């Protein structure tokens, strides 16, 4: 940290390391959008209430509007742009297109990152408020629509694409279960 309230940091985003000089107050969201031109992450509220800015830090989902850029140093950051790094869409993204899991598309980046993180959380055995038996390994319990809705409730969608999003997530979860 420098005396002028700025810091030189390096952010590793989608497997690429970027050196940045940022105002210490800069959120990760603003650093991604304004400094790195990764505008897939959206600013729907800037208060952690809508989830449109959700990204993955070391595989865990965070709202990047409530994460300081300086605090993200040393983590592996994945944004929506990193979900298909070689240009080939991953199954979750294809399911969103085929099942119409979005309309305006503004919350979509956050929904996708959140879903990737959520599926990993379930697979790792983390329970949710909707999990019937929280003492057991949650990954052994079926991921159903109620679970997905509960776990995805931090991501608002005003177009109301929720039913299609849930179907897309469940279809992807089924495919992952088959390949595991």
């Amino acid at each position, binding site marked *: 940290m420098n005396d002028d309230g700025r810091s030189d940091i390096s952010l590793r985003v989608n497997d690429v390391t970027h050196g940045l000089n940022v*105002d210490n*107050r*800069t959120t990760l969201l*603003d650093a991604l*959008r*304004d400094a790195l*031109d*990764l*505008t*897939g*992450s*959206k*600013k*729907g*509220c*800037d*208060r952690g*209430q*809508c989830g*449109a800015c959700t990204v993955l830090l070391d595989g865990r989902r965070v709202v990047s509007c409530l994460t300081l850029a300086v605090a993200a140093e040393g983590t592996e950051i994945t*944004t*929506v*742009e990193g*979900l*298909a790094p070689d240009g080939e*869409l991953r199954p979750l*993204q294809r399911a*969103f*297109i*085929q099942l*119409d899991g*979005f*309309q*305006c*598309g*503004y*919350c*979509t*980046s956050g929904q*996708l990152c959140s879903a990737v993180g959520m599926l990993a959380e379930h697979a790792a055995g983390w329970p949710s408020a*909707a999990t019937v038996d929280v003492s057991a390994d949650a990954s052994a319990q079926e991921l159903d*629509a109620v679970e*997905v*809705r*509960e776990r*995805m*409730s*931090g*991501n*608002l*969608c*005003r*177009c*109301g*694409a*929720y*039913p*299609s*999003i*849930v179907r897309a997530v469940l279809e992807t979860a089924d495919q992952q279960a088959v390949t595991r």
Partner: protein
Amino acid sequence: MNAPADVITDAVGTSRPRLEGPEKVSGRARYAADHPMHDLAFGVVVTSPVARGRIRDIDASAVLTMPGVLGVLDHRNAPRLDPQASGFFGPDGSMQLLQSDSIPHAGRAVALVVAQTPHEAQAAADALAVTCDAHPHDTTFTADHPAGRAALTVLGEDANVGDVDAELASSPVVVDERYFTPEEHCSAMEPHAATAWWDGGRLQAFDSNQGAFDVARTLASLFSLELDQVRVRSEHVGGGFGSKGLLGPQLILATMGSMAFGRPVRVTLTRRQVFLMIGMRPATEQRVRLGADTDGSLRAIDHQAAFEISPLAEWVENCPEGSKVLYATRAIRTRITAVPLDLTPPGPMRGPGLTPGSFALESAMDELAERLGIDPLELRLRNEPAVGPVSGLPYGSRNLAACLREGARRFGWHSRDPRPRRRREGHLLVGTGLAATAFGSSAFPSTASITAETDGSYTVRIAASDIGTGSRTALVAIAAEALRVGTERIRIRIADSDLGPAWSASGSRGTPSWAWAINEAATRLREQPHDPTRPVTVTVDTAELFTGRFVREVHAYSAIFAEVTVDPATGEVRTRRLLGMFAIGRVVNPLLARSQVIGGMIMGLGMALHEEGVRDPVSGRQVNADFAGYHIPAHADVPDIEADFVPEYEPDEPSGVKGAGEIGTVGTAAAIANAVWHATGLRHRVLPIRLDRVVEEMA
């Protein structure tokens, strides 16, 4: 029921995913605040600290020395605007930003701070010293407010059919109730944003709106520019629902900034500013009186609605619209009262007028069914009209009865015990309810160009908007059908005001209006002999064909069925099932249309159970101007929803289609409220049906 016989492609009627899907799921779709731009400066809006009053001073001296600050615009130095520039219904004071020291409502823009970076602009905006004299304000809406006056009749005259008072007096069964809906906010996920710059003598903008041409025309008029000096583009828009139908403050202020500082300026409203500055659905109070014979035949509908308005701009919340077309009855009277208050001017929100109006009418119909001892479904079927009960015009395609019957069959309505509070599952009370709706449909003028390229493909250009509606994808299908080719041979360009006049994505009139122009252009292109080795372009503006006369009542219809559970201890209402059957003419793309009507139903679910702009009468401000306080439905609130369409073709409309954008929202609140009554035996005539309201009623 079928398309014309000469339709040979399967372009229309086939489910296809959205054309822009790959961009949207990979983060590549650029919205208004996403375009990188050289030398871009950022404007942050400073809003009024009082609900009414006068600016005494804005002292920018300290702010001007802050890092990166380029300047501050306020009423003393901002570019002058034409006060006659028109909004929805005439001159609109909500667009007259930074023009005087008068403060008409809380959240009014009083200054724009422009700086090199968003942080510098925000820091300076936070530091700007604004001194105001507060004047007394009145933001408390009641239907009998002394300032109330008749609303404009631009959307239709009051109905005066038959003798309502006499029919009510002689009706053996009468319902006479009042219904209340609060301020509600469109809450599109993308906050309003614009980037404006000058290119030669031309004003250019990326803006978040529902109609690039309309916005460009209004912008030109407001800044006293020629139309060809303005270009507005809106390739991707993060939802609108009515809130982006007008030229918004973001573009007015970005334009001022670009003029004052000679470089591109981006203005993005904060979420809080969207709540405070953008027109909301006004609060309404409605009195509905229904009179019926014991066999369920309606004798009278009296629908009197009041809503809040701002003196700055006219608005009509046309609540009784559905009461004029849904049911046969001997007498109909409608009245609409506007109550001016010190508020942000209200504006359109998905199904304006009809949505709160449907809550009142369809709740009252349910109450009538209860008092008559007639099934609510049967009551509606018994009152199917032969002609428009107010207009006397014949109906176009009208398949409300088919929606009701098919919806009832799929929902399992007929096994319902009509008595309330009979069904329990554990500690939960379970109930079902329904509502019927109509939503007017028509086509307005637009301009379309189609170019037959030398490689056998076609390029369609029309200033349509895709705000999540899927219009880009739908219009390709419509063009393919009109040109008798496969969709793979069509390219489309939309959302650019340079493409000419076009209706906006509003009023559920987008697709019919744009389809009309595309069909006309395609027909002329096909009939025009041309040399296939050279591209040829045909341009049609359907304004030349528009008569403005409507000889039939053309509406979309729906029947909405809801099943709720109510926890009598906590007051929690959960929507467990929601089913909508829709008659929207020919369905261009079932995958996308289903998404659209389901999304509409979810907005109706929010209206029924969650959404309420709460205004503090002391400060005159909305106190819950964020998503922590203003609750829109989240994943966990929304069950799997079934929506489907009855086969239909509307011969009076281009491509046989009717609008689908709003009808999903219209009937859902009443269906849920009626289900809550069925579960609990208690009527909720005040929305939203909050936990505390349920608990208080149960006590």
